[in-house]
């Protein structure tokens, strides 16, 4: 037996070990598997992996160990893949701050993208990565985006403000500046988001609103619905600080019941001699929000309702009633909130909802909290005229199967009975009938309510008290028992025979009662002792003795107190004389009032109102100012043309459409001019992006480190030593991370460069040194664009289709590393050619962005399309297939080396400095004899820029001409200088790309030696 069990144990152990071994690799395998998929070259595999990872995130499973594998795909071309990577990044960046930094450069690059949606999404993700270290970068990005031409990007900037604020509240002052700028924005798209940011960051800076107040009021109808809610709430607060109360003269006409609402002080302040005139701006707000009561969005309707409640003259308030009642048709949760607000309103203004009383009738299918709220409102609405209808309705509710609801109804009946004296008797009789109900909760609730009602006029109701005494044995709910005992004691003089008998019964069961009942027994005993000591003296003493040894200290305490008070002895002197007056003092009747009585201290429609306690971040609604502040602050200096509500005019929509199509172009040019402007104003420090050629990783890391060191030496000149120290520290840290991670090469280099920039940038920020550090090479517009086009496909070989291409020398919109090409396709046949496109198969390795297929090309017609090719900084030909519906033609493009560059501008000093770094292997030079007509500066410049897409550097020295550019693909710096020493000229080319350098040299040489234009 023992052996058996031992065996089985060992077997189990084996089994478990085995399964453990199985499980571990299986688990690893799973993530390993995902990692492998992410590292594969196939988009579809990567996508599949990301989808599975998102599935894990959704389930709340931890997928953080995949971070390095995922973050590599951040620059993917596939939009869905990219989006999923963003989802992942935003989720885990906070936990993996160091690694998250690797993705920053991608976003920084995307922030400059000509496409507004790409810019916006980059800013969105960048600002969602909650990594404190990038705060300065975020700040910069927000500032830039706030001046973007696209309203969509500006909207995103407004959202980013809040994110940055929650990440680093110290940025508040800077952010307020941005908010101020964005508040001036006239786009409906931005308005809601910026007001949201305002509410979050600086809700007290009401002065920022003045100038924008009228604009916001006018835009409101066209703002998207969520923005409307936020703006309306903000404007409500604003109006309460800026306008005087419109309620003054109305107060005279108000119903009597509302007297309490008006502060007596406020009424005294009323200056009857001066009639109230509403500020036109106040009127503007009311007028422009009114149509929104018809919105389908319940939050908007509620927001407008609360605005009217807090701001409108009382006689205009009735327009919100219908809309609020309409909301009751909506979902259960909406009903709940709306009913709460109606409950608060209905206390102060019965008249508003009385005509809609029947809308608050309870259905058996309503949820309990809805039923209770409806009951509350019905109680509030009850008056002499409608009380009979309401009571009849209540009668059906009392019979409800939902006992909690039935109990609440009884409470409501009690409320009605106290509020409306005409029906008190009817209600009491009804409640007494309920005492014989079978359900305990109903009976208990009735007793409690009757007790409260009787307190108002006890003398007439001794028979009710007798009736209750009779029922006492059958009632077990403690609260009800306690209530009856209290009634007995309080009115023992009305029922002199019954009360002692009840006490006798209680003495028997004292020990079994609940605490609350025990207290009342002691109470009753004391009162009887004082009024009828002859009959109850012994009973009282017995009860007091029981109480003395009770387990509950409250009861022991009370007993001790009562004994000292009522039983005269030597020690208790003064007080016992007053015992009767203390215990039998006439007590004020309890006021049965609504739970919503004091809810109006909160702004309606807010979370605080719903909870009836101040939620964090709740902004108090201020009282009306006694004297209106200066109205002129809202005047806008420049008289703006009145903006037509957009939906009203068709023509505007059309013009907007056409604007859209041209917007991308205008945007691009503006961003260029923008960047140029900045260059002039800032003394930029340019850092170089470098790409090591070696494929050996070890070597690469070492060389990168060295280069970084080199940079630091050059930085030495500008930066204080402590900053250098910090930079080095930060860098060392990340380089270590890199060595640990095996990250594929191009990505690594990108990261390295961006990290270097980041580090220097941060080191400056840390010491609060405002250091004008420019961290990226900025492409400028081309100096010269050649008109010559090259033949791609001759019409003979192309069976009538001819194609020509030319280099536009613009940064390519399809990808940062692509060369932009313009293709002109012409149809020389007499038939239309259909479906002209570039075949999916690319024979060489180049990445080609194809133009959209041309559906149909008419005879003799020609069409111009643009495409992008990533030549990867080599002059290798790009081969691809140009296809029509019928045929396929192999074509190839061989770029001149000068076309693989993008011009950049820099100062002369920077140029020489950079040149100094690119010596030795990286320098190639030649001396030529220059033709005489080429000696002038204009001709040298023209010759060089026509050969290569370079930027001209303003030169301080005569006879030396400098040109700078970067390679399109890798962004390596290419510096060309021509020094004229009559009659010779020395051409020097400095670039890391030595092959390109020598090719370029040859071309420049030929250009300058050739005569002619």
């Amino acid at each position, binding site marked *: 037996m023992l052996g058996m069990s031992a065996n089985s144990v060992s077997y189990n152990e084996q089994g478990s070990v085995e399964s453990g071994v199985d499980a571990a690799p299986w688990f690893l395998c799973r993530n390993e598997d995902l990692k492998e998929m992410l590292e594969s070259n196939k988009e*579809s595999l990567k*996508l599949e992996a990301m*989808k599975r990872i*998102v*599935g894990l*995130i*959704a*389930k*709340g499973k931890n997928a953080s160990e995949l971070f390095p594998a995922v973050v590599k795909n951040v620059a993917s071309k*596939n*939009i*869905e893949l990219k989006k999923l990577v*963003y989802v992942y990044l935003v*989720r885990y960046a906070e936990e993996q701050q160091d690694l998250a930094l690797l993705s920053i450069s991608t976003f920084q690059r995307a922030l400059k993208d000509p496409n507004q949606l790409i810019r916006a999404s980059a800013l969105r993700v960048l600002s969602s990565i*909650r990594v404190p270290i990038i705060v300065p970068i975020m700040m910069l990005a927000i500032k830039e985006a706030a001046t973007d031409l696209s*309203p*969509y990007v500006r909207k*995103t900037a407004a*959202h980013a403000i809040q*994110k940055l604020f*929650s990440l680093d509240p110290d940025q508040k002052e800077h952010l307020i500046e941005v908010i101020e700028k964005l508040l001036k924005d006239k786009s409906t798209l931005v308005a809601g988001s910026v007001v*949201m940011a305002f509410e979050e960051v600086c809700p007290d800076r009401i002065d920022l609103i003045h100038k924008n107040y009228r604009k916001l009021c006018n835009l409101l*109808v066209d703002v998207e*619905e969520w923005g409307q809610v936020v703006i309306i709430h903000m404007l409500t607060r604003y109006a309460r600080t800026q306008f005087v109360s419109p309620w003054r003269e109305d107060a005279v006409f108000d119903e009597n019941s509302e007297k309490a609402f008006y502060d007596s002080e406020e009424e005294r302040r009323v200056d009857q001699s001066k009639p109230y005139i509403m500020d036109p701006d106040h009127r503007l707000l009311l007028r422009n929000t009114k*149509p*929104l009561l018809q*919105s389908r969005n*319940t*939050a908007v309707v509620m927001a407008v309702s609360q605005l009217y409640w807090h701001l409108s003259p009382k006689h205009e308030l009735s327009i919100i009633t*219908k*809309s609020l009642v309409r909301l009751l*048709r909506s*979902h*259960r*949760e*909406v009903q709940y*909130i709306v009913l709460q607000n109606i409950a608060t309103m209905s206390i102060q203004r019965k008249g508003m909802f009385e005509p809609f009383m*029947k*809308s608050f*009738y309870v*259905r*058996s299918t309503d*949820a309990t909290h809805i039923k209770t709220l409806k009951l509350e409102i019905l109680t509030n609405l009850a008056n002499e005229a409608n009380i009979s209808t309401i009571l009849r309705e209540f009668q*059906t509710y009392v019979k*409800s*199967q939902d006992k909690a609801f039935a109990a609440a109804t009884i409470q409501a009946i009690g409320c009605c009975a106290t509020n409306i004296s005409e029906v008190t008797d009817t209600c009491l009789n009804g409640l007494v009938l309920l005492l014989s109900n*079978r*359900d305990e909760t109903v009976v208990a609730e009735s007793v409690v309510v009757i007790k409260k009602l009787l307190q108002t006029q006890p003398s007439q109701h001794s028979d009710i008290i007798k009736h209750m005494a009779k029922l006492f044995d059958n009632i077990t709910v403690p609260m009800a028992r306690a209530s009856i005992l209290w009634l007995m004691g309080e009115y023992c003089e009305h029922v002199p025979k019954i009360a002692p008998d009840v006490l006798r019964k209680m003495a028997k069961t004292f020990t079994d009662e609940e605490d609350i009942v025990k207290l009342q027994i002691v109470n009753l005993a004391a009162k009887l002792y004082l009024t009828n000591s002859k009959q109850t003296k012994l009973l009282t003493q017995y009860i007091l003795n029981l109480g003395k040894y009770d387990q509950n200290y409250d009861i022991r305490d009370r007993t001790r107190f009562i004994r000292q008070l009522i039983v005269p002895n030597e020690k208790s002197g003064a007080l016992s004389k007053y015992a009767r007056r203390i215990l039998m003092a006439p007590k004020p009747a309890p006021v049965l009032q609504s739970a919503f009585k004091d809810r109006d201290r909160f702004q309606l429609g*807010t*979370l605080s109102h*719903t*909870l009836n*306690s101040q*939620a*964090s*971040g*709740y902004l108090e609604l201020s009282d009306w100012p006694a004297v209106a502040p200066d109205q002129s602050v809202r005047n806008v200096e420049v008289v703006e043309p009145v903006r037509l509500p957009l939906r009203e005019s*068709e023509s505007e*929509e059309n013009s907007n459409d056409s604007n*859209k199509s041209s917007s991308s172009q205008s945007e691009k040019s503006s961003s260029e001019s923008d960047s140029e402007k900045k260059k002039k104003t800032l003394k930029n420090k340019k850092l170089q992006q470098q790409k090591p050629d070696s494929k050996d990783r070890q070597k690469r890391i070492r060389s990168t480190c060295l280069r970084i060191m080199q940079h630091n030496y050059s930085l030495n000149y500008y930066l204080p030593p402590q900053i250098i120290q910090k930079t080095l520290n930060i860098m060392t840290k990340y380089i270590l991370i890199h060595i640990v991670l095996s990250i594929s090469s191009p990505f690594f280099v990108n990261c390295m460069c961006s990290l270097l920039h980041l580090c220097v940038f941060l080191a400056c920020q840390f010491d609060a040194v405002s250091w004008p550090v420019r961290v990226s090479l900025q492409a400028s517009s081309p100096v010269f664009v050649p008109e010559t086009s090259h033949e791609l496909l001759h019409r003979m070989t192309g069976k009538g289709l001819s194609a020509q291409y030319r280099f536009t020398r613009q940064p390519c919109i399809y990808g940062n590393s692509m060369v932009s090409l313009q293709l002109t396709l012409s149809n020389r046949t007499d038939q239309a050619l259909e479906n002209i496109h570039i075949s999916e198969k690319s024979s060489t390795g180049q990445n080609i962005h194809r133009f959209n297929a041309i559906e149909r090309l008419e005879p003799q017609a020609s069409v111009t399309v643009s495409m992008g090719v990533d030549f990867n900084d080599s002059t290798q030909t790009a081969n691809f297939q140009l296809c029509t519906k019928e045929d396929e033609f192999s074509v190839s493009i061989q770029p001149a080396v000068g076309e693989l560059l993008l011009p950049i501008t820099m100062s002369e000093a920077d140029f020489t400095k950079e040149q100094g770094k690119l010596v030795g292997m990286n320098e190639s030079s030649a001396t030529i004899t220059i033709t005489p007509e080429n000696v002038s500066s204009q001709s040298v410049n023209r010759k060089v820029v026509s050969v290569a897409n370079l930027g001209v550097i303003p030169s301080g020295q005569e006879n030396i001409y400098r040109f700078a550019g970067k390679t399109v693909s890798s962004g390596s710096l290419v510096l060309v200088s021509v020094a004229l020493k009559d009659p010779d000229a020395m051409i020097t080319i400095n670039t890391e790309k030595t092959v390109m350098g020598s090719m370029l040299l040859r071309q420049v040489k030929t250009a300058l030696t050739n005569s002619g234009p």
Partner: protein
Amino acid sequence: MIHSLFLINNAGDLFLEKHWKSVISRSICDYFFEAREKAVEPDNVPPVIRTPHHYLINIYREKIFFVSVIQTEVPPLFVIEFLHRVAETFQDYFGECSETTIKDNVVIVYELLEEMLDNGFPLATESNILKELIRPPTILRSMVNTITGSSNVGETLPTGQLSNIPWRRAGVKYTNNEAYFDVVEEIDAILDKSGTTVFAEIQGVIDACVKLSGMPDLTLSFMNPRLLDDVSFHPCVRYKRWESERVISFIPPDGNFQLMSYHISAQNLVAIPIYVKQNISFFETGSSGRLDITVGPKQTMGKTVECLVVTVHMPKVVLSANLSATQGTYNYDPVTKILLWDIGKLNPQKLPNLKGSLSLQSGAPKPEENPSLNIDLKIQQFAISGLKVNRLDMYGEKYKPFKGVKYVTKAGKFQVRT
């Protein structure tokens, strides 16, 4: 604003979480579970729950709780409305909003949630824009996607988001241009024991299905617009035109949408299409009861009442029902205590009747209140309020669209007390 969202099914399983700001541990939902337990019925869960540091605002829809976490003051309706919009979007995308469909399409759900909120503030909630950003799954597309590896994410940019008409996308093209409008009216009523109307009103909506090319500008007018007591519109409707001329002028979204909803005031006498004669009684002894229900037509204007269903929520003590129906079928579920009588078409010549006995739990006291009856019905080609569409005009486009209007009357919250 909205910090995180948790989806929880009826059994209390948390099956999806999404955070728009820092991650909040799912243990926050314990407060919700506590409230859920206390409420017994899912409908009774309070929509706003306070926890020490956060506030939970939840909605219950299609057997799923959408629980959102809030940190600071926000209008609660803002959150509730948004959550409902999320549920509607799921319904729109997947045909139904259920746990299975959400789990099956978790990637699309995530992509949608990502687009709908930025930092807790709604970004794109218009279905037309969302559909351009993320294409809804269809069987055909998912098959093509698996074969070709192409994606569901739109590569083009949504045109609507950047324009002043965010609800409509540009470049819509149809070969058949058509616009259909369904006027659907619901009668909300409470009838008392004797059949008199305690409360009745009519709520109507106009659902539209517009498939028109280009940028059509439509104008819809009514024969009797005065009937409409209170209206609310889709954002596309120009409020000003309605206020001044009582016509509905709008550039429609593409596809299906709800153009407007309206309310016919209780002052106008509401015609109740049917009457119900019922007698439900429980006996003091013998733990049994009797049930007898007859339904007949009242004010139907000569139309046929269809899809007539009577639902009774029986008291807890009713164990089983032994009934016989002259028309239709009945079913009593002893677990939920719901008696469902599906009558179908109402025949005025031969009134449907359900009669029989109920057996109660022995020993239990007889229920105090008789259960109320909930009625469901439908009348085709008839708007009970008498509302009539006068004409539909189109401007801005050249072609001639095909137009159609349909009327339906349904029972809304139609309850008969007994």
